[in-house]
């Protein structure tokens, strides 16, 4: 196997006196299985590798990537990145990360046994998931798909400014999408389980989630529009926290594209709300030792007691703001340059369970899934409007199912109207932890 750090180091060492070079080198192995009616519909396995090179010359950035690790491909990318840098605008804050003395957390995110797990075992998991989902309830009419997928990713970063870092992780995932039917009515439910190796996967839970979510929506109707308290299921809260963290990017703030610009020190949320991004927490799906520029990931408090404490920065945004990187650079792989993002956002949990929260609400809506979050949430203006389905809450209990509705407010208002924060923290795939969250005074649009 190619030594990734060796490749990165030898590229970074080619920097001349007038330039800085960063090499990001990564390799991944993936398996994915799709089962339909107890047979393998498709089975894919692949290994891929590539590198991305950033060249900074007099504050001008050029980037190039190539889907290969050999010397001539690396040289091709370096030459392209150098040429690209000639056309960028000179930026006094341009430049790569410098070692900042923060020690990387010792995290073990790699499970060697996932590599040794036979393909048959992976296939069997998805077959079993489909079987028990279908058998769980006579109203389950069809299984759209039952999937297993895993990935083993390794990356190395080296720069001519003295940064060296490596990261690696294994992940695996099973998911099932079920259709429940009764008469002409069809409803869908999605269930999943994720972990770092196969032993973490809970197929029973994934099946039960899909079945419950599909069957409890049967008979759903479109309710009259109302203003009410909305209870977000864990998955939805995690999505909301991801959006919220995006608005706290130091780059968006500096460029005047954040609704939280110039609000540090202000009460932006209810006192009960405290928010941190802590990728050093090994329970977090997005945990990582190093950020995408090779700096150690660290715990960053964003909101405490409702007060905005600060923003997330990478090296460039930190320099623009006259502060330092918070180790919050992320990248989508070797084909993209780093940007700013949260990896492990979590709210300080409350004490109530989901049932206890629901029992305290007289008239409300429990949202089990949302759609259109990518189109209906504007992270610059704060407008929030998503499609939703779920169950009405009446006198403290879940009542009739509802569908084809939207829930809307603004991010600013939602933070000021948080009614209950659940204690049911669950780390979900993605960059945030889920918990049950109740928000007052939201608009539900129906008939």
């Amino acid at each position, binding site marked *: 196997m190619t030594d990734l750090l060796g490749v990165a180091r030898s590229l970074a060492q080619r920097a001349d006196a007038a330039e800085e070079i960063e090499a990001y080198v990564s390799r991944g192995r993936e398996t994915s299985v799709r089962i339909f009616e107890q047979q393998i519909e498709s089975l894919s396995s692949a290994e891929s590798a590539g590198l991305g090179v950033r060249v900074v010359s007099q504050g001008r950035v050029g980037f190039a990537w190539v889907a*290969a690790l050999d010397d001539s491909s690396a040289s091709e990318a370096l030459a392209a990145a150098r040429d690209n840098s000639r056309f960028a605008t000179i930026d006094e804050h341009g430049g790569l990360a410098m070692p900042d003395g923060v020690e990387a957390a010792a995290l073990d995110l790699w499970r060697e046994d996932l590599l040794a797990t036979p393909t048959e075992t992976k296939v069997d998991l998805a077959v079993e998931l489909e079987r028990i989902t279908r058998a769980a309830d006579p109203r389950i009419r069809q299984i759209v798909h039952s999937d297993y997928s895993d990935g083993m990713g390794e990356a190395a970063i080296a720069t001519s400014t003295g940064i060296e870092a490596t990261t690696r992780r294994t992940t695996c995932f099973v998911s099932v999408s079920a*259709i429940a039917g009764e008469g002409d009515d069809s409803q869908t439910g999605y269930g999943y389980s994720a972990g770092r190796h196969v032993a973490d996967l809970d197929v029973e839970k994934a099946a039960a989630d899909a079945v419950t979510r599909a069957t409890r929506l049967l008979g759903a109707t479109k309710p009259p529009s109302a203003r009410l308290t909305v209870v977000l299921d864990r998955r939805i809260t995690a999505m909301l926290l991801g959006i919220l963290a995006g608005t706290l990017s130091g780059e968006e703030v500096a460029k005047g594209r954040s609704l939280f610009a110039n609000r540090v020190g202000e009460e932006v949320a209810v006192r009960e709300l405290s928010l941190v991004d802590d990728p050093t927490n090994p329970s977090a799906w997005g945990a990582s030792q190093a950020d995408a520029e090779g700096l150690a990931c660290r715990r960053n408090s964003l909101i405490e007691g409702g007060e905005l404490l600060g923003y997330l920065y990478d090296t460039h945004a930190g320099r623009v703001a006259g502060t330092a990187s918070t180790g919050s650079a992320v990248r989508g792989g070797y084909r993209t340059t780093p940007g700013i993002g949260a990896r492990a956002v979590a709210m300080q949990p409350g004490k109530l369970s989901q049932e206890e929260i629901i029992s305290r609400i007289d008239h409300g809506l429990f949202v089990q899934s949302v759609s259109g979050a990518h189109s209906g949430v504007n992270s*610059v203006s704060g407008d929030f409007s998503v499609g939703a389905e779920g169950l009405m809450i009446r006198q403290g209990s879940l009542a009739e199912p509802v*569908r084809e509705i939207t829930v809307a407010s603004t991010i600013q208002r939602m933070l000021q109207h948080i009614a209950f924060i659940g204690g049911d923290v669950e780390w979900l795939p993605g960059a945030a932890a889920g918990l049950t969250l109740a928000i007052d005074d939201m608009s539900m*649009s129906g008939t």
Partner: protein
Amino acid sequence: MEDRTASGISLDDRKVEELSSGHDRGAGIRVVIGETTGFAHTADLSENGLRSAAQAAAAVAREGGGGTRTIALTERRFPSPNGITGLPSDVSKSAKVELLFRADDIARSKSSSIAQVSAGYGDSRRRTQIANSDGLLTGDERVRTRFSVVCVAAGDAGLQTGYETLALTLGFELFERRSVEEVAEEAARRAVSKLQARPAPSGVLPVVLQRGSGGILFHEACGHGLEADHILKDTSVYTGRVGDLVASPLVTLVDDGTVGPEWGCMTVDDEGRAAQRNVLIRDGVLTDYMWDYLRARKQGRESSGNGRRESYRHLPMVRMTNTFLLPGDDDPDEIVAQTPHGIYVSHLGGGQVNTATGDFTFGMTEAYLIEDGRITEPIRDANLIGNGPDVLSKIDAIGSDFDMSPGTCGKDGQSVPVGCGQPTLRISGVTIGGTAGD
């Protein structure tokens, strides 16, 4: 096999922040036995690399007999829907950078409330060779170029955004179709117009979609549900409904990969099938679904040229190309004039659909109130929600105009470029997900 080069330039905050370029080359090998597909991909195009990828792909076929079969490949070439005259790689980087600065200047000069501008240029060239054990050998070359501008306007009531994208399956001659100035002005106008916007209404209202603004609705509301993979699994509301009236008789819906130079056009699809025009709904009656090689084979019919994949790293599946509603007879202005109270949508963001229930959402990124048959005040961004079959039956006016717009369609984690189009039309009632109570 595929060889793809791509380049991009981004401008933000008055600076060209970055130029990037990339190169990817590899092969994807698919082995189909009965209902099972084995797939592997590799960037190693040596004989050994291809052989080991083929073995990995064939590993699912454990019960299959041994032996080899020699297949004679016959090369087939199909007419390209568009000629590329200006390869982006032949254009200097400084000329591309210049476009971005021009867009920035124009957008900022449009209004003093424009607080921030970002703009992006991107091009890609994708060359493919496709061979299969039916003896087919063919290929395609697709050159796509895009240019987009995002503006932020600042006003007393906060920030608003406006964006506009120009994207076609063309080289640098893209900019002969439409200038960067027009794109920048449109993005700026959109952001500024929303500064005075009031909250969107909450509830069911008639909606008029401006031509070219809402093709995404038909892509989401029924296009996905007409993909044969959903049909054969009985996971679409349209399963078993060919010959049924599934829409207003005013509706004729077409998917057509040959419409050059739209964003979703191609010579052959990613399985080597020539792109073609497929009428999906004619005068409200469902005529056919969209098919790829696997699903067509299962039904003993021909593919409709809808087998697409993001890259050699991905498995092909049934996907749309350019999907559009044909124009009707109504005067677009009259459609508005005959709407006493409703919403006029000038620009839509993305959307999403649950094919099993037909429920969809999509975001309005520029919309206005219609009062007494006139377009009046702008409203803030909000989602619409509806049910595909229901909305199709509620189309009660179709204009004689038409326009298309580019989009990116995501399905099972794969993104492909698509075109969407429609004339100005009215839907008699859609749920508007705003916050303003009546």
